[in-house]
């Protein structure tokens, strides 16, 4: 028998809710109704692949972690484990005496920033304070001058996590030194990379750490107002931020005379309105000012002339999240991790064709292979690993043979990619690299604000060329034109959007030239992705004539007699894939053959 009651935690971040965690939470709540066992909400543990999750913490601190649960499983866990004390082995993914593959997902990571995510209740300031929360700002206010805070951040080697990796201490120093009767802190929570969710998870799972980071920055540079610019697509993060700000105000951590000192600071929230370019700092400021988010020329940098014309320091969510830890634990603890020029850890959103996708935090300098295989468990489809894309639409594709590359700012730049904000997309052999390049360009061309001609018109041209290559109408000279346009767009664009948008095209040409050639010269798609270059057919040996596929086909392209092999009329087929989904005999084949021999 155990002494006292266990605590039960259910993960309720966006990914968890999408996987059905709300029902699991309800079930647990219902079954615990007549007990005095504590049920808590937790943020994202990062193990998104195993949602919904329940964690049971025994009174002696031993933890059991369950994954991939249905409400029925949850009921069993409550009855057997929570109430009777018998862990349900079949459903456990982490825990005492339980050797699962999932354990390596966490053991290979180094969690500083994500330490609280999934463990504290993000909607309760006490929960954050119990693990040392708001001690960083207290230390700064009571024992350090603003210059000493900046010195400490410089010493830690912290570099901006928003993409460019600019040293945070320097940015703060410039803003502190700039003249201005008013100064601002802005937290960039626009997270525009369409495949990244690190910032969202930190905001949802450890809301107060970001607020504390902003407070410390405000004290360091002498600002009295902070803004969080957050994308409207993150309703849960917005709600928790509002709640967090209200709780911090109540405690006297925000508002006039923070913690009884002479320093005053308050934070406002501004919701983005759906424009990728607004993640760029000057565009973001325009947007907070209530205008179209069009980037402007720098200098002057925001540190000199920022929001409403006053000196402003803009930093990323993850950057702010690191700050309280640095102050609390000291710069030397922080800079002992990482490489010579890239200190600390980095959070990545590991997604794509990966077994264990989710949020991973690793020391800078960990290699790509270590992340993909040791942490992520390898490729989900069982097919060979082909490439990773870092940095989203501004980044580059890195082929599997460069898998030994350490993830740090300099090494990635050397091979034509960037660290970016932390999207890490894994691709396998079934991924067509031309299609990937086209996808990213489709995104960036739509998001170009239109100010610079090369960015606006050039990317449209590049996209058109990629489209015709995928349609099997590529011309020999197309690859040279793409290369030429890419360099001109990089040169001729004012902001980081245009300067980096051609990267996915340039890196795929550089590392996967053979795929471009296959599309252009031989008119086939090695990954069997590009619709115009593939064919659907039915294997007469395997087909049993069950008629299921014919019923599914939206264009009536499939015909035949019951119990006889069916056939697909290629002229009607739109390659939607519904038939493959419906076939239980794997009789439907997708093929792509070289058509022109050179």
């Amino acid at each position: 028998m155990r002494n006292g009651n266990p605590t039960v935690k259910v993960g309720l971040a966006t990914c968890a809710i999408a996987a059905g965690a709300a029902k699991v939470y309800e079930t647990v709540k219902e079954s615990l109704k007549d007990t005095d066992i504590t049920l808590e909400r937790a943020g994202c543990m990062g193990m998104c692949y195993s949602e919904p999750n329940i964690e049971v913490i025994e009174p002696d601190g031993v933890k059991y972690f369950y994954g991939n649960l249905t409400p029925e499983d949850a009921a069993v866990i409550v009855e057997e484990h929570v109430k009777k004390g018998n862990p349900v082995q079949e459903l456990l993914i982490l825990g005492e005496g339980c050797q699962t593959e999932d354990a390596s997902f966490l053991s290979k990571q180094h969690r500083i920033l994500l330490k609280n995510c999934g463990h504290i209740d993000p909607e309760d300031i006490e929960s954050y304070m119990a693990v040392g929360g708001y001690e960083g700002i207290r230390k700064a206010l009571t024992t350090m001058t603003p210059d000493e805070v900046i010195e400490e951040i410089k010493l830690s080697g912290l570099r901006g996590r928003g993409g460019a990796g600019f040293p945070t201490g320097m940015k703060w120093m410039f803003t502190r030194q700039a003249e201005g009767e008013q100064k601002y802190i802005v937290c960039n929570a626009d997270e525009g990379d369409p495949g990244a969710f690190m910032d969202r998870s930190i905001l949802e799972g450890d809301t107060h750490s970001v607020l504390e980071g902003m407070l410390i920055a405000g004290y360091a540079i002498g600002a009295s107002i902070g803004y969080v610019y957050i994308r409207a697509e993150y309703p849960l993060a917005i709600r928790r931020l509002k709640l967090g700000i209200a709780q911090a105000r109540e405690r006297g951590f925000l508002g006039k005379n923070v913690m009884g000192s002479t320093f005053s600071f308050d934070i406002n929230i501004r919701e983005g309105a759906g424009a990728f370019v607004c993640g760029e700092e000057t565009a973001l400021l325009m947007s907070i000012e209530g205008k179209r988010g069009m980037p402007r020329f720098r200098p002057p940098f925001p540190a000199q002339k920022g929001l409403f014309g006053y000196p402003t320091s803009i930093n990323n969510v993850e950057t702010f999240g690191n700050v309280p830890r640095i102050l609390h634990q000291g710069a030397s603890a922080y800079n002992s991790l990482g490489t010579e020029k890239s200190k600390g850890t980095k959070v990545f959103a590991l997604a794509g064709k990966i077994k264990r996708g989710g949020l991973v935090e690793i020391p800078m300098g960990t290699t790509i292979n270590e992340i993909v295989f040791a942490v992520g468990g390898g490729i989900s489809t069982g097919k060979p690993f082909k490439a990773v894309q870092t940095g989203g639409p501004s980044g580059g594709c890195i082929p599997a043979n460069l898998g030994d590359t350490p993830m740090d700012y300099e090494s990635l730049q050397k091979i034509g990619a960037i660290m970016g904000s932390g999207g890490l997309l894994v691709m396998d052999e079934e991924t067509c690299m031309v299609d990937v390049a086209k996808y990213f360009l489709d995104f960036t061309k739509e998001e170009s604000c239109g100010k610079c001609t090369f960015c606006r018109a050039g990317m449209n041209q590049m996209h058109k060329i990629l489209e015709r290559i995928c349609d099997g109408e590529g011309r020999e000279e197309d690859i040279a034109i793409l290369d030429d346009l890419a360099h001109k767009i990089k040169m001729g664009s004012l902001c980081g959007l245009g300067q980096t948008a051609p990267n996915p095209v340039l890196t795929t040409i550089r590392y996967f030239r053979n795929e471009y050639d296959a599309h252009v010269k031989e008119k086939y798609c090695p990954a069997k992705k590009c619709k115009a270059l593939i064919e659907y057919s039915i294997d007469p040996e395997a087909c049993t004539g069950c008629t299921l596929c014919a019923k599914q086909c939206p264009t009536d392209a499939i015909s035949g007699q019951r119990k006889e092999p069916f056939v697909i009329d290629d002229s009607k087929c739109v390659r939607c894939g519904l038939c493959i989904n419906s076939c239980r005999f794997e009789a439907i084949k997708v093929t792509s053959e070289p058509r022109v021999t050179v």
Partner: protein
Amino acid sequence: METNELKVLAGENPLFAIKEIVQRHNAYLGSAIPILQDIQNTFGYVSPEMMMRVSDFSGIPVSELYSIVTFYAQFRLEPIGENLIQVCHGTACHLAGAEKITEALQFETKAPAGGTSPDRKFTVEKVACIGCCSLAPVMNLNEDTHGRLTPDKVKKVIKARLKAAEAEAESKGGSKDA
């Protein structure tokens, strides 16, 4: 005033609702975007007439409001259908076959790309990453997120939604009679 109260007010007296929204924000610098966001939350879209009223109450030129509404993807100039479907076309979802999901939705709902079906039951939009990449491909149907989609599953989700809508309509009709 809460969003729901505003919605009620908007139904009774749209002009008052607009005035209330403008007054709530107008004292702040750079208020145009939050005002328009509240207008859209309340009315579901932003029409030229609404922009003119906002301009009357706030003093912000209509041209400036229009420039904002047309720049940011979030704003809609037309009302949406009864159900809003947002298909994620983020990177992970693209790799997992988001294109096929959108196609299946278009077949199923008859809504054109980015538009509303002729029966006004569904609006199908493309959005970027909604942060559930490990469940890719993903879509939002109104408030709910559906993951690990296949074209087949899409069909089922739409059928279930139509059925639920019918049941709702019936029970509403029923309670009126009672």
